[in-house]
């Protein structure tokens, strides 16, 4: 795929060229939206919205990493969706305590009532990770999803979220540390090679 040629054609109004780019990037854009929003339907909506917005503003793309530019559009679409959710609150993922307050410990996922088979289901680790991601502040979550889940380099992430490189480094370091603390609640779910020493860096 000649990305530059496709971008050039898309900037000239070719929808076919832009659709080729969509087919190439749609998985990573959808996954980014999914990790930020943690909802399949909302992620699909945000992805579609991001591609639509990207096509309409593709003339503003001035070169550099096209993936980072697309990531910026999907991040904006996700933020818009989260703002909409704030205006129309839905049932939170976290269960309430007996006092009616939201539980802030991630250990609720490791329900003692769950059967061992359920605990070892393949998607448990994913749920645990997603839960820990959801516990992060939004700006930390966005950076860690792009850098660690999508494997983007620091400069690409800086372009995507429009903050200086130093801020990216700082947010990423703090996000990783918070994730590590959160994941300590799921030791039994973690693969042996990734077991974290409890309290090792406390």
């Amino acid at each position, binding site marked *: 795929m000649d990305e530059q040629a496709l971008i050039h054609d898309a900037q000239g109004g070719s*929808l*076919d060229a832009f659709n080729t780019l969509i087919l190439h990037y749609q998985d990573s854009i*959808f996954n980014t939206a999914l990790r930020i929003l943690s909802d399949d339907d909302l992620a699909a909506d945000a992805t579609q919205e991001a591609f639509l917005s990207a096509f309409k503003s593709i003339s503003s793309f001035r070169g550099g990493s096209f993936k980072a530019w697309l990531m910026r559009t999907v991040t904006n679409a996700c933020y818009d969706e989260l703002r909409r959710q704030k205006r129309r609150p839905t049932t939170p993922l976290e269960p309430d305590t007996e006092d009616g307050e939201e539980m802030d410990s991630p250990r609720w996922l490791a329900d003692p009532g769950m059967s061992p088979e359920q605990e070892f289901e393949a998607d448990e*680790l994913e749920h645990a990770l997603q839960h820990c991601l959801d516990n992060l502040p939004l700006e930390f979550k966005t950076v860690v999803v792009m850098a660690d889940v999508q494997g983007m380099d620091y400069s690409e992430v800086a372009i995507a979220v429009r903050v200086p490189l130093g801020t990216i*480094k700082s947010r990423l370091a703090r996000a990783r540390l918070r*994730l*590590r603390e959160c*994941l300590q609640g799921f030791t039994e779910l973690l*693969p042996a090679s990734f077991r*974290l020493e409890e309290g090792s860096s406390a």
Partner: protein
Amino acid sequence: MNQRDLELLSSYLDGQLKLSDSARLERRLSSDPDLRAVLDDLRAARGLLRQLPMRKAPRNFTLTPKMVGKNPPLPRSYPAFKFVTSLATLLLFFTLGANYLVPQLASQPPAFGMGGGGAPEVYSAQAPEAAATEAPAEESEPPVQLAPLSTATASVAEDSARTAEIPSEKNGVTGEGGLENPPSAPVEVQQPVRPIWQVLLAGIALLGAVTMLLMRQLAVARWRRK
């Protein structure tokens, strides 16, 4: 663990440190087990995140022309047809207007000759003075000679007739004075634009519009086949 060290360790993990900074940190790591433990934790957290499965997009997110509100690409000659058609239509309306209005204006009796209204009264009050100043040249020409003038000078003739009439009205001469003037013959005023030009312009506008419509329909049909 301070924030600075945490950032250094995280950047070190991603290979984002300069060689000199990296070497300095490695020296510290070899002698500081706490620092090493934090590095291991960060590495483990990053490793787990990289384990997150990449989900396949639930559907294709490709865009359709309808979604982007895009119009089909029109032929390059389309703007030229649009310009010619618009110009022809504009000129056609202009000539129609001119052909209608010019004879109307030419054959309209003077406003202050009607009497009755406020404005005409002002005119009639001022008219004698105007007539007095313009009189010397025009009084010598009898109104009778004005009638056969050509259409091009018809308005001038009427102005003259008007100036001739005003003093007589002021003097109260109505019946006999009016009869002395011969009835003005109906003046046939020519239209400024010949009808053949209008037909031609209408033809161009119509032809242009039909061509544009066909071009658009063909483009839409081609766009849908894609």
